[in-house]
């Protein structure tokens, strides 16, 4: 775990940004937040297809959970309406809680899966929930002790 985290830091200092890949939204189910699981060709040599799809599917599940209209959202809505929305000064909305979970998940995925492959995922909320931005890094050519994470895909898990 420490090695991978170390890689994430090294990534920024020793690798240079080569390219950015943007995963677009999938609107087939309406306006719910969902991203396309189509594997972009630019990542062909960098990461296994299944790992990528798992990440996107997990993110889609989180967003679906956040936007689910059901018992909890009714209660939250009614309570908020009755208290003239002052209740949100005290408690967090369900969406915010799920967003925190997503942020932790992305951090974990970056550390474990993507940084060792020279990739970094940006949380979609920082891009207006429009795209998942994946930054592709190339090693600057320094053959030192730095991770060299960008060129090896075999060291992944």
């Amino acid at each position, binding site marked *: 775990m420490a090695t991978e985290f170390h890689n994430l830091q090294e990534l920024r200092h020793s690798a240079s940004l080569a390219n950015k890949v943007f995963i677009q939204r999938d*609107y087939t*189910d309406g306006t719910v937040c969902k991203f396309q699981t189509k594997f972009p060709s630019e990542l062909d040599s960098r990461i296994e297809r299944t790992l990528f799809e798992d990440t996107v599917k997990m993110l889609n599940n989180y967003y679906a959970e956040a936007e689910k209209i059901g018992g909890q959202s009714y209660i939250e809505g009614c309570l908020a309406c009755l208290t003239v929305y002052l209740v949100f000064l005290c408690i967090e909305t369900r969406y915010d809680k799920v967003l925190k979970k997503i942020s932790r998940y992305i951090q974990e995925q970056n550390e474990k899966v993507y940084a060792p492959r020279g990739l970094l995922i940006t949380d979609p909320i920082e891009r*207006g929930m429009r795209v998942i931005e994946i*930054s592709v890094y190339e090693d600057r050519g320094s053959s030192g002790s730095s991770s060299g994470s960008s060129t090896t895909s075999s060291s992944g898990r």
Partner: protein
Amino acid sequence: MITRKVTRKWEKLPGKNTFCCDGRVMMGRQKGVFYLTLFLIVGTCSLFFAFECPYLAVHLSPAIPVFAVLLFVFVMAMLLRTSFSDPGVLPRALPEEANFIEMEIEAANGNVMAGQRPPPRIKNVQINNQIVKLKYCYTCKIFRPPRASHCSICDNCVDRFDHHCPWVGNCVGKRNYRYFYLFTLSLSLLTIYIFAFNIVHVVLREYRNIFEHVVSLTPHCTVLEVLVCFFTLWSVVGLTGFHTYLISLNQTTNEDIKGSWSGKNRVQNPYSHKSIIKNCCEVLCSPTYPSVLDRRGVMLEDLSSPTPSDASAASTHQSSNPVSQTTKSSAPLIPNEHTPDEAKPGIGSGTQKSTSSPKEEKPPSPTSPNAVAPAVIKESSH
């Protein structure tokens, strides 16, 4: 060490919004009509509480002013919530994303002959087995999500754009539509309430005066209130009715005006659940969406930021002019087609790629020309 005021992201946001309270409050540009709304509501209610309520509380019931106060508080809370919150603004695309989309469009269009206007930028997506066209926004440099629209007054793309309401001084969109609806609904109730009890008051006074043979002139305030309520009633109640109709069909005012889902050959509304209750639930009881703008986030100024996308950005030039926090106006420069890439301010997290290639082809006109058949980027759905 130079003590510098922290620059928050709202100061650098493009668009024509007004921000107050260090980014906590976000409004549209023109606020005059909003102040009029406030004045009318507060003024009329003050007259009601000052002149009618004492009489009615004594002669009828003390519950009358109590309920009026509760209703008034609710109306004001909904109004302020609608006016001050982010309606669902979509942040503009950062340069890399804009370039990526441009390359996609160019790839789809193929080679455009010199002198020919490029085809309009439209993406077809399939939503619930219906084809919906997504338009490209030249200001925000994104393909607008379904139901989003660009507000020219606020100069922002807003998600699930309903309309820009000058009475509220803000756009009405995904995040504040339910507050807007509750505002119109509660204002209708308040207007009817005040109107009704004004009539009751007048009737009671005249009734007593008839018995006591006292001539009294109905106080001018009552007449004023009745007039205000009468005119407000027709407009606000009508508006509430209209929005109730829209909610039951899961449509926005924007779609209704444009006739997006009406007409024989047009697409049926793909967002409607075909059930009034389900539509109402979705619009009014869906979870509270977060704002994606991050107005109060601090502008990143160094390289050791935790955000991965800022790794290569030396955004020191972002902090060169800390905007005074008492400035009410929005961020200065609004990027458009004619702004060179270097002069565009950072948006959102303030990433400025110093090696970005300014290869964007600026289209000569944003309107869709009829000369060339539109090249459509077909999105295969999964």
